[in-house]
């Protein structure tokens, strides 16, 4: 097939952002269509070049066609929406019903999150996987936080062992997710601004960890509520077809949950801190689009 048509199909492939299996079916179907179209045009007396140009005109914009096919496939079922919302609901419940201090509940949640993340990863990375994947990275971040409380002189542990391992893990998972669809990286990172928001609002400086735990206990129902709101956001995201609506729902939810953190902590989160968190949230949710573009250009 001529190069211009190959470029056209490459452009469709780049913009489809669907499961690999669906993507290859769509591309193969369009290839067969182009094959028939070219044959008919050539039989009608057109040269190879004329037939290619006519075929490209008939096909229309590659981006538009890819977007419309994406919208035909993008809507997840209610089961998928529920499955995707579950890690947020689970995390919310840990706080809302005060299970978070029970080691058994925490371990159970951890095993479930890791199990679902591994299962989804090997089952072709369906859309419901990414919220689970986000939470499965929490133990990595929590281990980093615990390193802050190490006795002086032990910081080399963080530098030599923890940092390279954690960065490698985060980088490889993020890049693989972005290659699938940058929006799924945003979905994966969705709870991060809320977690940072609660951490900043609740963390007392120069106080004992026990005092910190008491503060979490005090705000636990509200922490739970913000994560339940994230669960609702994710379910909505899965049910939406259009990309711009999906982006909007993530950004609005980020703004809403940060506002909830500021509201429920009654001024513990200052306005400048809130504004910085909003910027961090926008960066986290939207920067994967830029990374995707860079990855495409660098191959």
């Amino acid at each position, binding site marked *: 097939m001529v190069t211009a048509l190959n470029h056209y199909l490459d452009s469709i492939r780049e913009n489809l952002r669907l499961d690999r299996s669906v993507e290859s079916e769509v591309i193969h179907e369009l290839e*067969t*269509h182009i094959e028939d179209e070219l044959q008919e045009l050539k039989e009608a007396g057109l040269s190879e070049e004329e037939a290619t140009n006519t075929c490209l005109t008939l096909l229309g914009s590659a981006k538009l066609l890819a977007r419309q096919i994406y919208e035909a496939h993008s809507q997840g079922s209610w089961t998928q929406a529920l499955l995707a919302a579950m890690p947020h609901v689970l995390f919310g419940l840990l706080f809302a019903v005060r299970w978070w201090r029970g080691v058994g509940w925490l371990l159970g949640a951890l095993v479930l999150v890791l199990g679902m993340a591994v299962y989804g990863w090997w089952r072709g990375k369906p859309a419901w996987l990414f919220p689970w994947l986000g939470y499965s990275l929490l133990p990595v971040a929590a281990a980093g936080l615990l390193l802050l409380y190490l006795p002086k002189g032990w910081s080399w542990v963080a530098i030599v062992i923890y940092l390279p391992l954690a960065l490698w893990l985060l980088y490889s998972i993020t890049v693989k997710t972005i290659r699938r669809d940058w929006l799924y990286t945003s979905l994966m990172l969705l709870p991060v601004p809320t977690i940072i928001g609660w951490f900043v609002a609740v963390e007392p400086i120069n106080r004992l960890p026990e005092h910190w735990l008491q503060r979490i206990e005090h705000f636990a129902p509200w922490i739970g509520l913000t994560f339940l709101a994230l669960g609702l956001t994710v379910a909505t995201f899965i049910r939406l077809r259009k990309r711009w609506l999906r982006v909007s729902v993530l950004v609005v939810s980020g703004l809403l949950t940060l506002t909830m953190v500021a509201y429920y902590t009654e001024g513990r989160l200052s306005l400048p801190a809130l504004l910085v968190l909003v910027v961090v949230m926008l960066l986290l949710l939207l920067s994967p689009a830029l990374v995707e573009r860079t990855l495409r250009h660098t191959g």
Partner: protein
Amino acid sequence: MAQRRELIKGSIDSLLLCLIEQQPMYGYLIIKELERRSQGYFRFKEGTLYPALHRLEEAGLIRGEWQALPNGRQRRYYHITGKGLRRLVAERSQWQDFLVAMNLIIQPASDYGEVKKW
């Protein structure tokens, strides 16, 4: 032209279900068949056809299946499903009601006078 596009847009699903019910078909054949049977009135672009086919498939109304042509080439044939058949029956009945109602309104005024006298 824009009016015709709007009319077609609203009837794509019914047209596709109707055609696929009569015989399983692949994309290129659907475009040609629609154009032939409608004497050139329905000229679907690929950008209209494939998203519609994939939408119908996602909704479970049709099912795509790769089949080999006599020349050995593979084509993705679409078959109507039970759910698609039920939808088609409902849509046919709606279209018939719509056409009868449209004819009653659109027919020339003289016919209307005769109907009134009668």
